[in-house]
């Protein structure tokens, strides 16, 4: 038969397909509706705007694939940014500051992981707790006043290489690395295994605790990186940076076809999910849609993107 059709059908079987389709539909519509949309500068803006959500979503995706959830990413973004900025301000050493920021993210992730694996706290509640604690610490450290941020962080957050935003490049590199990690390495495959069937995985000798600790730590690290990029972009580390990010990040992951029940999901899908969300925001600005309609449209697009998938696939677990 027609090979194109076959290829299309094969694509359709992937869970990312419907959100990719939605992305294309929005993009095609925009390229007709706004003469500015296809300008390289605008497209790169969209890429940059998606990058922080996408980078943090890479970590969140692994957590969700492994049957966890991390609600604390938004606060970890804020805390890491603040720690990096404060250390830079107080020591004047930029590399030490950035390292401290990343380390903060990593530590928050490890705390989440330990709360889950050692104290057996449901990750939803554990990370809801760290959400509050991390934000509180960021506020305490700064007295609520933003700290200026610059240098390397600003280059990463706002700089361009050959016209391409650094944070976008970083996102691409990280997405490829995490993709390879998730499909090719032992740890990566074990994450899928524990998400799909934790008991069977444990019986097969997979170290549940170590794997879970790893995914939370990794997610924390990426949230820390996200905090540095975001504060670099804004040249300011606000203790309120990243408030509410967790919902955007989780939405990107799930839009991209990752199952909340664990075991399924792809990195490509996550990136597409984040791009769709950034594209929507770009569309609102380009088309001058009123705030209230923005809110309605955003909801409808999310529903449609996933409805396509659901309708095509039919029920699952029943």
């Amino acid at each position, binding site marked *: 038969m027609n090979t194109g059709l076959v290829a299309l059908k094969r694509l359709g079987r992937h869970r990312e397909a419907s959100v990719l389709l939605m992305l294309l539909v929005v993009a095609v519509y925009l390229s007709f509706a*706004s003469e*500015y949309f296809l*300008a390289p*500068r*605008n497209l790169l*803006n969209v890429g940059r*705007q998606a990058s922080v959500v996408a980078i943090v979503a890479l970590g969140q995706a692994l957590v969700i694939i492994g049957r966890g959830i991390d609600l604390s990413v938004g606060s970890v973004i804020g805390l890491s940014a603040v720690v990096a900025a404060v250390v830079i301000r107080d020591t004047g050493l930029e590399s030490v500051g950035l390292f401290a920021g990343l380390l903060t993210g990593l530590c928050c992730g490890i705390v989440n992981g330990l709360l889950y694996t050692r104290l057996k706290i449901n990750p939803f509640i554990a990370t809801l707790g760290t959400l509050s604690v991390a934000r509180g610490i*960021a*506020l305490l450290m*700064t007295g*609520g*006043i*933003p700290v*200026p941020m610059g240098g390397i962080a*600003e280059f990463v957050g*706002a700089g361009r290489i050959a016209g391409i935003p650094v944070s976008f490049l970083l996102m691409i590199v990280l997405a490829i690395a995490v993709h390879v990690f998730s499909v090719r390495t032992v740890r990566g495959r074990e994450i899928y295994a524990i998400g799909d069937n934790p008991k069977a995985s444990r019986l097969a000798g997979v170290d549940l605790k170590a794997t879970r600790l790893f995914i939370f730590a990794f997610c924390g690290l990426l949230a820390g990186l996200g905090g540095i990029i*975001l*504060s670099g*972009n*804004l*040249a*300011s580390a*606000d*203790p*309120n*940076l990243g*408030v*509410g990010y967790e919902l955007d990040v989780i939405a990107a992951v799930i839009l991209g076809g990752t199952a909340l029940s664990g075991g399924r999901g792809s990195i490509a899908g996550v990136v597409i999910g984040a791009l769709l969300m950034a594209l929507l*925001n*770009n569309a*609102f*600005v*380009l088309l*001058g*849609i*009123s*705030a*209230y309609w*923005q*809110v309605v449209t955003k909801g409808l697009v999310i529903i449609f993107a996933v409805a396509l998938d659901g309708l095509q696939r039919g029920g699952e677990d029943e």
Partner: protein
Amino acid sequence: EPPKGGTVAAVENTKGPIKIAFLSFQNNPFWTPVTDGAKAANDYLKGFNATVDFVDLGNELSAEAVVAGIEGALAKQYNGIVVVPIFDGTARIINEATEAGVPVFNIVAEGAAPSERLAFIGQDATSAGEQIGKFIQEKMNGKGKLGVITGYFGATQHTQRMNGAVDYLKANAPDIQIVGPFENKDKAEEAYSLVQDMMTSNPDLSMVYVTAGGPFGAAKAVKDLGLTGKVGVVGFDHTPDNMQYLKTGEMVGLLDQAPYQQALDASVMLYNYLVAGTEPPAKVIPVVGNLLTPADAK
């Protein structure tokens, strides 16, 4: 002559069509006069071959939304931008726009980090706080207990408004005891609960200062507790919700930021700069808020 509600007149346009982007949020009644001011500017400047396009940044206030909005306006090749930058993190993109030859006029609130904007018109949050502080001092006769409710811990404007008042009172009215601050996340229902609890643990409280969203919730709590006349609420913005309690007396002072005038004047001054190179009168044009009391509401 200047348009109605504004203080600046437009000059003759010799440059050809001018496009100005007006970037602002929309999530509560505060923004309504801002939007109206932008529309009035558009109507007024139409006669000068210039348009002011209102671009809605959505209902969630964040630095990222402002950055994305300015990036979008640059992509759409506007000649100039009026923006509500609010956050520290917006300085970089404002500088970028200025460097790209697109002047930016800040209104309402800007971050503490300096930027190369053409000018800023708005209320200085710290001095507004001070203004409120003075008012509170008078109302309380320099003694008693004052409850403080702030919007978000860590939100610059909220913190400045709070500290402006609190620092002033600490220096000038040491007998006024501060209870709080507590966070109400701009929510009236939280303010309501907080006032209830504050009155429980401080039955002698006589004044509540709400720095940001939802002062009317505090006023409603005062009303429900039957303390009208004994406890007063001071806060910001002449929204209908707040004004109502000014009439009934729970709200004793409401400071506004003349948002309509800010929006209109900023647009016209930016237009003047674009067509004639007329610099605004100052880099920072202060707007002194209008402090309404129950007497004004009658």
